[in-house]
């Protein structure tokens, strides 16, 4: 079990009501968890904390909304938009754990091309999430 004590986590999921047990488990492990229910909130939080970004982001890929936040370009999910903007616009190297039910291999390979990104397939247990977080923080990434 990785040591997550003191970790600052941004938990981005459109169903925090249902993700609460996972959030509480993280908090029980000593993490400080901030939540965002959509891509907009997530990016606003990261911009506001640009100088002191969170240690890790748990990002739900399937937050359907589909529209790029600023340009109104159609994207597949706001999860992907957020991911790309974190890396390309905000240029944050923060480790990201992407939680998804998608099994599209091409998409997953695209996302995993980033060395500081890991995937965890939904539904996951808290223990599983902790392992993935540990790997992306401290060890080589793995396929999920």
């Amino acid at each position, binding site marked *: 079990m990785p040591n997550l004590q003191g970790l600052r986590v941004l938990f981005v999921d459109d169903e925090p*009501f249902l993700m609460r047990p996972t959030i509480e*488990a993280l908090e*029980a492990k000593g993490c400080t968890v901030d939540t965002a229910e959509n891509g907009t909130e997530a990016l606003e939080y990261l911009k506001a904390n640009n100088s002191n970004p969170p240690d890790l982001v748990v990002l739900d890929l399937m937050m359907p*909304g589909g529209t790029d936040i600023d340009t109104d370009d159609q994207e597949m999910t706001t999860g992907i938009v957020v991911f790309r903007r974190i890396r390309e616009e905000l240029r944050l190297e923060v480790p990201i754990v992407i939680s998804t039910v998608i099994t599209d291999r091409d998409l997953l390979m695209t996302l995993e091309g980033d060395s500081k990104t890991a995937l965890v397939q939904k539904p996951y247990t808290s223990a599983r999430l902790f392992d993935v977080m540990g790997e992306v923080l401290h060890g080589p990434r793995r396929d999920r």
Partner: protein
Amino acid sequence: MCAHCDSGAAVRAARFCEPVDYWCDWGLRDIAVPILLHGFSLGTIFCGQKALDNEAEDAAGIDKLKKFAQDNGLTAELSTLLDLRTNADKATVEQIRQMKGFLWATSQAISRAVTSRLGQSSGERVQALRAKIEERRDEIRHKLSALAGRPGIDDFWERFKGILESLTDLLDCLGIAVCLSYNGRADLVCSHGLPIKDKSLKSLPETSILTSTLERLDGLQRFRVEPGRRQPDCIICKQVLSEHRNVHIILYAKSRLELDKYLHLFAFFDPSLPARYNLLLHQRERQLSRIMSETVNLYWLLEQQQTLKSKLKEKDEYLRNVFHEVKQPLHSIVAYCHNLADPDFPHERKQRIPRYVVEIGKHISMMLGCLEYASRGERDIIRQDELRAAATNLSKMLIDCAIDMQGYSEQRKAKIHVEVNTTDPAGKIYVDKSAFQMAIGNVLFNAVKYSVPLTPITVAAKRENNRTVITVTSTGVGIPKDLWERVFERGFRVDEATSYSQSGLGIGLFVTREIMRAMGGHAYIKESEPLGWRHGQFALHRNVVALDLPGPDAPASGGKRAARGPADGPPRNKGNEEDDPE
């Protein structure tokens, strides 16, 4: 020779067994004389006025006639005939009579010669030939069919036209059948009385014209009848019909208009023809109509198949969504259980878990209840007899609904306020409490889900025109007016461009409206007014969803509850079997 008028004259002559004089279409005077053999017409001699455009050609024939006349004592008649050759149109009645007399004698001479050649049994032979013709009719038709499609057949028509002109005078003889095909090809079925191969006949000089004509016929050919040409259309067939011969005529026409024209001509001779034709046409049109109807049905079936495929695809997608929506909360319950089992999980957090699990359970229960209703295939998914109305304290019910939503609203950082004017008679209503709670719960759930965090959600109730109106007001993205009705459709979810989230099954508001309808009420969007400020990229609106019911004076539903089983409806809340105390 003009087949149009000459052929008609030939038939008249054969019918009356005497010479016929007439004016041809070219304005020339002609005479047709039948050649008779035992009561049957072998052919026709035509003689008439002719423009002298080729005297040399005529000279040889005239010499022969002169010799014939000399041998038979008809010199004077022939002389008259020759004199009138070019101006028969000016001939007197007496002169025409003389001409007819000469030709009639000629005809009789031919008949005698043929009879002489055939011998004593000439009559029997003719009868036998006629019988053979009848026998060969089918054979002839088969031959005709076999010739179809052969190269050059269509060209034959040009050559055959001339033959047909000659044959018009033979039409009256021994059962010639002329079939003009309705489908554009004419089948000539010639069952002529004098077989081509009868050498004894062929050698007769008097019959040379007949045999040469038969030789040129050369069996049975197909030819295309060109509508609008004079022959072989109407005249021949008209005359034959008037004789009631055994003739099969199939009218050919390229269009209904032409066919009607032919029909008009033939109807003069056969009054029953139009009726028979109309019957046939009617039958064919019915056939066509049936074929078209079956084709339309086939297309409809194909369309239905496509629709079914599309619906099956929608169903699969819907099932996937259902699976996802149910799996998520169940997974949360499992996660809570893991937390409970974790010895390192803080105790004070463990104490809150049962409450969270209950909330999730209610969420699943509400969703399954809506699913059960929405999965009903009937038009009216909720029947009135399913509902049991009872006097219910409205404010308490609304508060209960808000409490049920508490956990979710806290997570979404929303606060629900309930406003009920207790001095107003709206304080009590007659409703099926469980169903009504579901209806309000769905509206509240959507309000919490789509409202901006930290903005209030207000549930209010009041009386309006003997109806109880409950409104749920929230702050969030606007709902376009063209979607105000669509949001109540089964499976519809708000456009992803205007919503934070598209999770959910899209059945909550649909079920709400159905419940309200079954209660005699209605659910609708009352307003979606812009507030003038933004939250991120979205302009904020005040959205109001209204549920209205008949006033407290009238029960919202009547009748006893039908027998219920586990699948009969949504799960009931505790205590809903009795009236709530105020």
